[in-house]
C-alpha cells in the first residue's frame, strides 16, 4: 500500500536528519562535549514536535475542524502575559525569570490552572457547545495579548531584551535538566492519546453516532481538552510560542497519508514534526549562523502555507 511506503520514507528521512544533527563533526576527542549539548536539545525538539502535532491533531478532531490549533485558546498570548508580568513585578534578574526551572513551573501552573478553571466553569454549564468555548478562547487570547503589550510598554528597554528572547520559540538555550523532567508527563499524555486512539476515531462520526457506539462524547472531549492543555502548556513553556507549527504538520500529514486512524496519524504527524523541526533547527544553526530563531522560520513558512490552504480551499 502506498501509505506504507510513504511512512517508511518519512521514518528514514527522520532518522537521517536526526543522525546528521547529532553526528555532524563528531570526533573521538570532542564527542563528549558535543553530545552533552546536542542530546538535550534534540530531546527538547522531539518532545515539542510530538506534543504540538499530537495536540493539534486531537484538537482538530474534537472541534471537528481542520483549520484550528490549540493556540486559538490563547495559550501563546497567556504565556507572553505571564512572562511580561513577572518582569514588571520582579525584574529580569529575579529568580522567577533567571531560574529556568522556577520560571517553567510558574508558567505551566498558571497556564494549566487558568485553562482548567475556564473548562470547569464552561463544562459545568448546561447546553454548551465547543464553539462557544473557542470563541471565549479567542476573546481571552486577545485580552491577554493586549495586557501583555501594555506591560511591555512599561518595561525598561534593557529588560525588554530579555523578554524578547522569550517571545519567540527557540531551541538555542533549552535547559538540560528541564528537558529530562518534562519528558515523563509528556510521554504519559502521549501514551493516553495513543491508547484512546480508537475512541477518538469514533468521534469522526459525530456526537450521536459516537453515543450509539458507546462513546461518551462530552466526557471524551473534556479529557482530551485536559491532555491538550497539559501538552501545550509544557511545550510552550519549554520552547516558547509556536503559532503555526501544529497546523502545518497536521494538515501536511493529512495530505500525504490517506489515513483516518488516529493511531497512525499521531505517529506520522509526530515524525513529520520531528523532521521539520530538526531540519529547521539545523538550517538556523548551520546556514543562518544563529542569526534568527526557528519560530521566525516556522511562522513564515506556516503563514504562507496557511494562505495556500485558504487559496486552494483545501480546509
Amino acid at each position, binding site marked *: 500500500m502506498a501509505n506504507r511506503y510513504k511512512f517508511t520514507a518519512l521514518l528514514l528521512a527522520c532518522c537521517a536528519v536526526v543522525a546528521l544533527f547529532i553526528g555532524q563533526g563528531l570526533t573521538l576527542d570532542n564527542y563528549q562535549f558535543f553530545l552533552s549539548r546536542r542530546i538535550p536539545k534534540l530531546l527538547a525538539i522531539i518532545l515539542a514536535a510530538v506534543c504540538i502535532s499530537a495536540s493539534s491533531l486531537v484538537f482538530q478532531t474534537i472541534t*471537528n475542524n*481542520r483549520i484550528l490549533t490549540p493556540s486559538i485558546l490563547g495559550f501563546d498570548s497567556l504565556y507572553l502575559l505571564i512572562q511580561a508580568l513577572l518582569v514588571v513585578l520582579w525584574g529580569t534578574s529575579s529568580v522567577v525569570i533567571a531560574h529556568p526551572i522556577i520560571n517553567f513551573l510558574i508558567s505551566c501552573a498558571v497556564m494549566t490552572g487558568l485553562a482548567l478553571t475556564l473548562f470547569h466553569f464552561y463544562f459545568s454549564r448546561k447546553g454548551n457547545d465547543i464553539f462557544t468555548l473557542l470563541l471565549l478562547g479567542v476573546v481571552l487570547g486577545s485580552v491577554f495579548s493586549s495586557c501583555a503589550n501594555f506591560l511591555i510598554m512599561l518595561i525598561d528597554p534593557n529588560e525588554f531584551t530579555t523578554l524578547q528572547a522569550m517571545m519567540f520559540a527557540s531551541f538555542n538555550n533549552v535547559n538540560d535538566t528541564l528537558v529530562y523532567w518534562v519528558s515523563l508527563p509528556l510521554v504519559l499524555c502521549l501514551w493516553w492519546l495513543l491508547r484512546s*486512539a*480508537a*475512541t477518538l*476515531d*469514533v468521534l*469522526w*462520526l*459525530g456526537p*450521536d*453516532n459516537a*453515543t*450509539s*457506539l*458507546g*462513546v*461518551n462524547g462530552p466526557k471524551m472531549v473534556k479529557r482530551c481538552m485536559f491532555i491538550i492543555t497539559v501538552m501545550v502548556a509544557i511545550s510552550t513553556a519549554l520552547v516558547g510560542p509556536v503559532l503555526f507549527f501544529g497546523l502545518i504538520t497536521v494538515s501536511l500529514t493529512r495530505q500525504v497519508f*490517506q489515513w*483516518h486512524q488516529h493511531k497512525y496519524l499521531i505517529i506520522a504527524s509526530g515524525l513529520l514534526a520531528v523532521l521539520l523541526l530538526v531540519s529547521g533547527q539545523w538550517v538556523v544553526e548551520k546556514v543562518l549562523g544563529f542569526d534568527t530563531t526557528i519560530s521566525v522560520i516556522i511562522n513564515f513558512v506556516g503563514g504562507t502555507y496557511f494562505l495556500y490552504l485558504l487559496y486552494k480551499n483545501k480546509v
Partner: protein
Amino acid sequence: MITLSKLNKTYGSQRVVNEASMAFEQGKITAIIGPNGAGKSTLLSMASRLTKLDDGAIRIANVALQDWDNAELAKTLSVLRQANNVNMRFSVRELVAFGRFPHSQGRLTPEDENKIDDALAKLDLTLLQHKYLDQLSGGQRQMAFIAMVVAQDTEYVFLDEPLNNLDIKHSVEIMQVLRRLAHDFGKAVVIVIHDINFAASYADNLVAMKQGKVVCQGSVAEVLTEQQMSQIYDIPFAIHDIGDKKVCVYFG
C-alpha cells in the same frame, strides 16, 4: 423489551413530548408516525439515550436506562439519526467496521470481520465496500450507515427516518432488511417514518403521535383506521385493502 412510561420533554416553554408511554417488542418492527412537530424524533432520541428526558422512566431489558453503562448499552442498543455528515474520508467498509467498536474497541477480530462482511452483504454493498463515501449517491450512503448499525448487531435498533430522501427501490430494500432483522433475527426495530404506506406495509406495530401525545398504538390493523388517521393528520383519509396490504389515499 423496552418500556417507556410517561416520558416528558420540554424545550423552553414548549412541551414536545407529553406523558408518552409505549413498549417495543423483540421480533417486531414498530413504526412511530405522526405529523411534523409531533415529538416523534425527540421520543426516539430519548428512548435511545441521545437526549435526556425531563421526567418519566425508560427500562431496557428490565434495567432502568440510568443504570446502564454507556459502553455496555452500545452492545444492546443502536441508534441512527437522520443527518449523518462525516467530513472525513472513509471507505464503506471502514464505516461499517465502526459498528464493531462496542464489541472490540477498534481491534477487529475474525468474528468482527465476518459480521462486517455479513452486514455489507445484507445491504447489498459488497461490491461497493472499497469505495469512499463521498463517491456514493445519497441512497448508497444511507445504506452504508444502516449497514454500520446492522454490523453493531444489537438487540434493539432505532432508526430516525431511514427512508429520508431515498428513491422507491432503496426504500423498499431498506425496509426488507429491517423486516428480516426483526422477523428472522428477533430484534426490536423502531423507526420514525413519514410515509404511512411504507409503515403500513412493513411495520408490525404502529404508534401514532400528535402534539407530543400518543394518540393511539397497537397493531397496524388497530391503528390504521380512516377515522384515527384523519384525526391525526387533519386531512381526510381513505384506506383501501389491495391484496394483503392496506393502502392509504390522502390526496385531496
